[in-house]
């Protein structure tokens, strides 16, 4: 894992990628810092962190598009996969390298609140909490990018799809507001989910019996829940989609609340996508 980590880190700075990422990130961050703190003489630094989250849409694809796709295009995955390394070790090494570049860039921006502290009082712990949230949010986005990069051997496609996925998460909260919350649509949505899972199982295992059994169990659960607690389906779609809303949890950090549950949430989110990445690579070897 360490070897892959070191190689990836070097690769970021052997090509323009690392510099483009850092340059762009620091430029945006600097502009917002200048406009919201320096020009207005305001010590309210946390607002910078909350307004620059859009920068992830652009910089995360830069950071992650190459990670797995380039390996399969250059056939260097053959070297990694035939070495005694585990797939999880490879994926983690790459993930941590991307996260390290991001973290390093983020640490540079810590200069801004330090500058502010010379001229007034700043809310230190609020800013520390904000940074933790910002870092976790970025790390979660990077895990999505890494996953998408493992699906294709074309960097450009990886970048565009990652951008699309992040954009979807970005507008998710806005989408949620327009979604029906009545009971019927909740039940329909649950049924669609069950069918979707069963279809996914069928397409991966080609076993019709297993998928039918899974569908039957799913519908059974829906019926069971319906007869015991009908209210469960009120707003079911919204609750499901909210689970994916990375930004909603980020708001807590921005308000200066540092609680355990969003931290666990972000780490779990990243872990799920890293796990999926490992599965994708393993699966490709089997098919």
């Amino acid at each position, binding site marked *: 894992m360490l070897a892959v980590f070191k190689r990836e880190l070097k690769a970021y700075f052997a090509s323009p990628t690392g510099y483009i990422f850092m340059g762009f990130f620091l430029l945006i961050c600097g502009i917002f810092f200048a406009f919201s703190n320096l020009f207005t003489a305001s010590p309210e630094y946390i607002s910078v962190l909350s307004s620059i989250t859009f920068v992830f849409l652009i910089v995360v694809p830069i950071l992650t598009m190459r990670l797995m796709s380039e390996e399969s295009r*250059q056939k260097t995955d*053959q*070297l990694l996969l035939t*070495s*005694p390394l585990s797939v999880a070790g490879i994926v983690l090494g790459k993930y941590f390298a991307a996260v390290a570049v991001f973290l390093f860039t983020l640490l540079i921006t810590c200069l801004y609140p330090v500058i502010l502290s010379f001229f007034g009082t700043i809310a230190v712990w609020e800013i520390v909490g904000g940074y933790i949230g910002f870092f976790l949010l970025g790390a979660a986005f990077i895990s999505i990018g890494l996953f998408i990069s493992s699906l294709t051997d074309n960097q450009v496609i990886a970048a565009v799809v990652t951008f699309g996925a992040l954009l979807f998460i970005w507008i998710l909260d806005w989408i949620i507001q327009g979604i029906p919350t009545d009971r019927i649509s909740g039940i329909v949505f649950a049924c669609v989910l069950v069918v979707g899972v069963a279809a996914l199982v069928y397409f991966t295992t080609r076993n019709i019996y297993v998928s039918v059994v899974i569908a039957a169990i799913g519908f059974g659960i829906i019926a069971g829940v319906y007869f015991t607690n009908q209210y469960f389906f009120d707003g079911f779609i919204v609750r499901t989609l909210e689970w994916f809303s990375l930004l909603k949890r980020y708001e807590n950090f921005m308000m200066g609340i540092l609680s355990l549950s969003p931290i666990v949430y972000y780490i779990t989110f990243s872990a799920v996508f890293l796990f999926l990445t490992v599965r994708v690579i393993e699966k490709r070897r089997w*098919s």
Partner: protein
Amino acid sequence: MIQVIDVTKRYGQHIAVDHINFTVDKGEILGFLGPNGAGKTTTMNIITGYISATEGSVKVDGFDILEEPEEVKKRIGYMPEFPPLYMDMTVQEYLDFVSDIKKIDRAAKKRSMEKIMDLVKIGDVRKRLIKNLSKGYKQRVGLAQALIGAPPVLILDEPTVGLDPKQIIEIRSLIKELGKEHTIILSSHILPEVSAVCGRVIIINKGKIVASDTPENLSKRLSGTGRLSLRVAGPEKQVLKLIRELEGVKDAEVQGVKEPGTVDILVEAEKDIDIRRPLFYALSRAEYPILYMRSVDLTLEEIFLQVTTEEREVS
């Protein structure tokens, strides 16, 4: 050392490798011969654990590739058809990285690195970016990568493809040299290459093993129908008639006239009959001097044709 048991690989409906069985003994150099798309690379990818077989199992040194992949992978050095090189690294950086992922400790690395670089002659480019190396050097770095950690088994997928003749000879003698210490599987679609280096040859076609023998036996078996190319000074019609009437000649055809007053003829003999002497005496009696006579080697395509039709006759 290597046991391949009933290995099959399916891609949807397409069967890339079809129930292949073979074993490789310690210290053996096995040649894997087959046309493009025969399943050579797929088989090698399965042995090295890059892809998984649909059915069957592979054992290296007694370890199963699915049950103990790490133990197997430690024992194999793999040089794929396209050397897996990171273009943004220098040769030295790359080989350091490979020793790191192969989990080789520092002391052993230092000792072996110089030796390997000397062996494949890349010491003079160690500081250069792999991106800027020529094809031949890239190939050698790919080979060096496989040698790191002194794995007992080497698997080389078309190691000489894309090299110039001088480099091909160098790599071949290098492989022979390596064969003294390693068990080697080597794939190729060039027959002379395999027969020059390997102790045993497996011919694979459409995912199936069609022949497995020493190169000598194989060529003996295949040279059953001797074919000769002749240049005879004399009138085309008479010469051709004379040769065709000779006992043991299966067929003869004119290949053209390259020298005035002579004719080039391809003669095919009956199985297991040496017609060179009768041919010489018959033509000299008729005072049609033979300007040259040489046996025509079978091309790979013809060998496949022959081996596959033989199989059909047997079954």
